[in-house]
């Protein structure tokens, strides 16, 4: 999911960086003081989750958690993911500093989409509806991130069919695992601390 340095063309890098900068600026302006601890914790969770490797499928893939981060944080998912990716790039050489903008956008934009799609649904009184929507949230977030990566690579000139096939096949196991993980987290939070799901 992390695109390394030296792959993308300059226009793609610039576009990613400026989109991310705008979104981060907007969400920092919107962020409230009492939200900061939640953002920090989920940022750390994202930082750590990318180290958990899913040993299935043809390529090397890992957890992303952007579905749950999006639904819990809303717009503040952007700074959370940007900070976590920066330290992944510095400490583990995942991705790179020049691709930071593109990578952040690839993972945080699906998080925002999931936030708007599912924030009401996962608080539904009907458990079955809430759980299936939580699964859809985790699943969709990874799929959208995969599609974003594919778009970034296609704009740089990789053949479409090959990239699209890879993205779908390689991330299918992760999509399912993330879906289940999201159900697990949401179930837990609904029982223990339902007010945390009330993100603006």
């Amino acid at each position: 999911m992390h695109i390394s340095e030296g792959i993308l063309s300059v226009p793609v890098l610039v576009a990613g960086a400026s989109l991310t900068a705008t979104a981060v600026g907007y969400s920092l302006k919107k962020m409230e003081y009492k939200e900061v601890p939640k953002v920090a914790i989920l940022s750390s969770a994202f930082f750590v989750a990318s180290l958990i490797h899913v040993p299935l499928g043809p390529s090397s893939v890992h957890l992303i958690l952007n579905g749950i981060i999006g639904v819990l944080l809303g717009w503040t998912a952007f700074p959370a993911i940007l900070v976590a990716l920066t330290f992944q790039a510095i400490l583990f050489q995942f991705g790179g500093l020049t691709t930071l903008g593109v990578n952040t956008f690839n993972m945080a934009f699906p998080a925002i989409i999931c936030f708007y799609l599912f924030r009401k649904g996962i608080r539904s009184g009907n458990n079955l509806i809430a759980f299936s929507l939580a699964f859809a949230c985790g699943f969709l977030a990874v799929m959208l991130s995969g599609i974003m990566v594919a778009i970034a690579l296609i704009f740089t000139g990789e053949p479409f069919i090959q990239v699209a096939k890879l993205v779908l096949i390689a991330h299918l196991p992760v999509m399912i695992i993330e879906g289940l993980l999201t159900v697990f987290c949401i179930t837990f939070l609904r029982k223990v601390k339902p007010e945390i799901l009330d993100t603006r």
Partner: protein
Amino acid sequence: MKNKLYFTLIILFLIIIVINMSTFAHKVNIFAYVEGDRIYTESYFNDGKKCIDSKIEVFDNQGNKLLEGLTNQEGVFSFEIPQKDGELKIVLNASMGHRAEYTITADELKDTVGVIKEGLEEPISSERKDESSFKVSPTEIIGGIGYIIGIFGIIAYFLSRKK
């Protein structure tokens, strides 16, 4: 109550990390060595999984592409030394944005050219072990979490002044 939940979450994630310590993955590595008049390259992900059917490109020191090829089932790609003067840059492109480079120096090329070495397996594999010690250490993980909390501490400070 709120803080308690956050701490539980942190501890949970740390436990998951410790359990998964041996399976860290994600970065790709490439390692190349000269044997006889061929150059062998081995490509693998951080967890040791081989990169199969990944594209390898070889450049000279001026950045001209000399040749390209795909790795086999073992993650190995080998080719004849295309030129002996100047270093060679070998670039691995393992799809979905994974990329790594390895440079073979001119000295390395000259030393071995023309000398056929049989039974060189042992020293090569031990050298490869060094190369694969890219694993993430727990210190870095905990340090990284510390940095992240610190950055949000600074953000919290500025947000508190805004009011």
